[in-house]
């Protein structure tokens, strides 16, 4: 692969998000206002929103979730940013990771110095069955959906192939959920910011309070094996293997490298960006890996001039527990077949050698699909600037990475971030 370079450097100087959760009284525009105001507060020096020149909004399907298309100018409007150009980017669950990339390209093109990148999704208006149908629209409606595949079903099929090839057991997946909830419990913006042991204790306490039969789980592993507490969704994936249905929005402020210090003394430079697409899942040579993730990360590493080993923190796309395991292999953090062992051995824990999803990941923080990619950048921005409070990874973090997948890997986009001072 040629070592592609941008014509100009780009840095993140502001990053904010709404709380992630289920908000019956808020539309996606209300959530975006929250994210936008949160981003403004995150900018260290003076910042006038009127200086924003262009807007990229990642959104999967406000069409199906809110009967609202043409969302980008609406988001520009509610932030008071009309008549600036506003572009919606849709690449399924990778929509706002790709929006971030388009914001980078727009600045690198020379046309703009300051870009707003947003991500939005308002999912909880619909009943779960319709959300299932809507997410399936990210797959191939003509050839995959008629087979009865659901979105969890695709990742479950990947898990089956991975288990067959590498000997992983379904129990190994639980390590990912347990870790991500441990992280998410320290993230005030997380939708399910509670550890799984605390979740279990909450259910025991609730049963006692209501005078119902008190469950007799011996520990949280026992809890996760209980088919009533943790029902099967698509074997081998159970409820706690799946990210939730979430409302949320994110806003990032990107500027050209030359002017970054007008906004902060600690810009986070984006030194690598890679994106790739792929064919339908059934058409792929290897069902135990996401080829688009391997290609996107290779491109990002080459542009950045770094290797997987150099990355200190990473947010990876854990829409399902198996997705995180495969991602950590595709990104080159672990050899193929070693990802599940790394999760078991706590290598990916916050205090491990390769902390993954310190935000709680999509699993605990929530997965408002079109906002999730930009949301990863918020966590990296905070971690690399030492602003992640209780969940802060110890030590200096010169390099971070985000990995955002659309569908079952039809799209993958990877960014490498650098802190220079």
């Amino acid at each position, binding site marked *: 692969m040629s070592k592609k370079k941008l014509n100009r450097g780009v840095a993140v100087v502001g990053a904010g998000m709404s709380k992630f959760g289920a908000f019956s009284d808020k539309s996606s525009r209300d959530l975006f206002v929250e994210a936008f105001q949160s981003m403004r507060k995150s900018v260290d020096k003076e910042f006038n929103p009127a200086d924003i020149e262009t807007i990229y909004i990642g959104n999967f399907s406000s069409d199906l979730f809110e009967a609202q298309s043409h969302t980008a100018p609406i988001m520009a409007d509610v932030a008071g940013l009309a008549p600036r150009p506003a572009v919606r980017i849709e690449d399924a669950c990778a929509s706002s990771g790709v929006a971030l990339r388009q914001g980078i390209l727009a600045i690198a093109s020379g046309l703009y110095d300051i870009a707003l990148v947003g991500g939005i999704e308002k999912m909880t208006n619909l009943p779960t069955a319709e959300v299932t149908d809507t997410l399936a629209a990210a797959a191939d409606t003509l050839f995959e959906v008629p*087979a009865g595949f659901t979105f969890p079903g695709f990742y479950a099929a990947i898990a089956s192939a991975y288990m067959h090839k590498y000997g992983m057991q379904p129990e190994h997946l639980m390590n990912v959920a347990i870790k991500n909830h441990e992280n998410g419990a320290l993230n005030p913006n997380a939708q399910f910011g509670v550890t799984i042991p605390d979740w279990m204790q909450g259910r025991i306490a609730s049963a006692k309070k209501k005078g119902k039969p008190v469950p007799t789980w011996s520990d949280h592993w026992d809890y996760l094996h209980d088919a009533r507490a943790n029902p099967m969704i698509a074997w081998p994936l159970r409820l706690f293997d799946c990210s939730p249905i979430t409302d949320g929005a994110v806003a990032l402020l990107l500027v050209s490298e030359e002017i970054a210090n007008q906004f902060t003394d600690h810009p986070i430079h984006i030194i690598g960006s890679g994106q790739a697409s792929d064919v339908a899942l059934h058409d792929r040579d290897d069902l135990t890996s996401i080829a688009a993730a391997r290609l996107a990360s290779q491109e990002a590493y080459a542009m950045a001039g770094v290797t997987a080993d150099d990355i200190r923190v990473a947010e990876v796309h854990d829409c399902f527990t198996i997705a995180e395991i495969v991602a950590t292999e595709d990104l080159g953090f672990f050899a193929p077949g070693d990802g599940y062992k790394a999760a078991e051995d706590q290598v990916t824990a916050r205090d491990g050698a390769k902390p993954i999803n310190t935000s709680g990941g999509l699993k605990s923080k929530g997965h408002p699909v079109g906002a999730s990619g930009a949301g990863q950048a918020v966590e990296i921005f905070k971690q690399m600037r030492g602003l992640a409070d209780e969940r802060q990874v110890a030590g200096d973090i010169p390099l971070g990475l985000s990995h955002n997948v659309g569908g079952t890997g039809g799209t993958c986009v990877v960014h490498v971030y650098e802190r220079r001072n």
Partner: protein
Amino acid sequence: MTATKSTTTKRAFTAASFDQYLNEKKLMGSHCANCDANFLPPRAICPDCYDDQLEWVELDGKAKLAAFTSIYIAPTAMINEGYGRDKPYVAGVVELDDGVKISAQILGLDAANPEEIKIGTPLQAEFIERGEGDEKRTFLAFRAK
């Protein structure tokens, strides 16, 4: 290679043609003579040589299971067929002897005991009819042999 090339009228390489063949109980892919490669679903353009002079090819439906899941939380279309929490079903990726893969529902396996299901299980294509009247449509499935 057990595929048979079609020499009759050439239908467009579309999903509609594929579905029309399914209605006729035929599993049809497309074939690039340049690359001697089969494609399922049928492609109109070969992704290797970019030729668009492909041919229809009938596949014999012999296959094996490449990946699978047993689905308990079903989409609306499958709920309407009676599937769901109490009646899971198997969806899988199937590798045909003709060197192509496709997604399909898998019949003849115990969906309630997915841990017993083996990757590599031999399968045979089967055509399922669903819906009534104008809504009637043939779906591709595979059955464990």
